């Protein structure tokens, strides 16, 4: 159709005549194909949004909408949460038990070792518990909305974990809500390492299953075994080192130099209700330092 349009445009323009004649044919052309032009114009806007998606995500309009969406999702989410109370309860009990064990361990250490008090400073990482109000799993670009935002001290690029393991990174926040980009989003990238050997690679998602992610850039001389745990590397300022991500499910040697590793994720995104957002009090310091060094 556009090709035919072009031909008719060319042929109508090719007629000899003065300038007003051209104008008239041009106007007639616009009139005749106004719907096509409107179609192309609207598609152009849509394509522009897709191509410049990072600007889209940060735009004021989308931010305002985040507030509205959050409110609507929040109203509806009660039902979903109520239906899964049993599961949540069970998981909380498990976490409780683990924490109690942890306390036992640490308190026994405190008894026997002397704590050297250097200078007082706040802890580096602080966890803000939040509730998920909206969550998608089976799309290519999944997002999670939580019920806390700027007013609760949550800003972009903060890490998000659950009691099971790593969840994702805060993409944007409005006053009372934030969107999280979880591991199961095709835009997600994170530096992780293998627990046993400390080799670091890039974790990403291929869009196939919400249970598995992929790990790339592990060199061929690394010693891998199925079931090895994958942890955050702590190279970025987003996550502290050693948060559990998943375990190696299977691996193949891809084109000689690097492994292609399938990682079973610890976090079950399909039944996720509560997450913790990590505030890193030294995040800005680290980012500033790294940027200064690069210059």
């Amino acid at each position, binding site marked *: 159709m556009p090709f035919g349009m072009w031909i008719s445009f060319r042929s109508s323009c090719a007629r000899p005549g003065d300038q007003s004649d051209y104008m008239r044919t041009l106007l007639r052309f616009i009139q005749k194909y*106004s*719907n096509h032009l*409107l*179609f192309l114009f*609207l*598609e152009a*806007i*849509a*394509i*522009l*949004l*897709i191509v*410049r*998606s990072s600007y*889209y*995500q940060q735009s004021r309009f*989308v931010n305002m*909408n985040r507030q509205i*969406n959050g409110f*609507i*999702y929040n109203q*509806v989410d009660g039902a*979903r949460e109520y239906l899964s109370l049993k599961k949540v309860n069970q998981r909380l009990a498990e976490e409780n038990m683990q924490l109690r064990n942890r306390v036992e361990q640490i308190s026994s250490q405190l008894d026997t070792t002397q704590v050297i008090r250097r200078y007082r400073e706040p802890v580096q990482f602080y966890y803000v518990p939040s509730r998920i109000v909206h969550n*998608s*799993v*089976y*799309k*290519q*670009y999944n*997002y999670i909305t939580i019920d806390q935002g700027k007013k609760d001290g949550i800003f972009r690029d903060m890490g998000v974990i659950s009691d099971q393991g790593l969840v994702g990174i805060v993409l944007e926040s409005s006053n009372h809500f934030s*969107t999280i980009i979880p591991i199961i989003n095709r835009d997600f990238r994170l530096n992780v390492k293998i627990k046993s050997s400390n080799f670091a690679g890039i974790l990403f998602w291929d*869009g*196939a*299953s*919400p249970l598995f992610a992929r790990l790339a850039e592990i060199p061929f001389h690394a010693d891998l075994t199925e079931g090895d745990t994958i942890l955050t590397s702590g190279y970025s300022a987003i996550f502290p080192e050693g948060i559990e991500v998943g375990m190696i499910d299977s691996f193949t040697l891809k084109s000689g130099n690097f492994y292609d590793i399938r990682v079973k994720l610890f976090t079950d995104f*399909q039944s996720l209700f509560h997450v913790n957002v990590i505030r890193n009090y030294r995040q800005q310091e680290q980012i500033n330092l790294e940027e200064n060094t690069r210059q």
Partner: protein
Amino acid sequence: MNIVARNIFRLIVVVLFQVLVIDNIMINGYMVPYIYLLFLILMPFETPRWLQLLAGFVLGLSIDLFENTPGMHTAATVLVAFLRPYLLNLLAPHDGYEPETFPRIHYYGFNWFLKYTLVVVVIHHFALFYLEVFQLRDFLSTLLRVILSSILSVSIIVLSQYFVFRK
């Protein structure tokens, strides 16, 4: 109710139903139904083309805003809105569409509506899923997603004709 007001009301209901109910139905990654096209499908025959395009744009954009996707639903929905008049021409019965009727099962029967919905939904899902992936690497698995999701979407849309839009 006035036909314009009724359509605006329908737009809001369809969008909310999509994001609050349908999006919570998670079967698996290959079956992701999008039923919001119902709004475009049911638009009156004599709607001016520019209005159909703008309506498609508004519909796609509102879904995009809820799903956090940049422009993908908008692009696919505008495409469908553009092609719909051609499709309706192709599927027109011998003596054309009668005035005072709407594109529904009630007026034109199950077979007609199924054909019509199927083409609209497949075009839309095809455009949407390939835009989402934005590459041809996963061509076959994406195609499978298009087919399975289309089947589900079409079923829900056709069923809605018996339960919601009976009249």
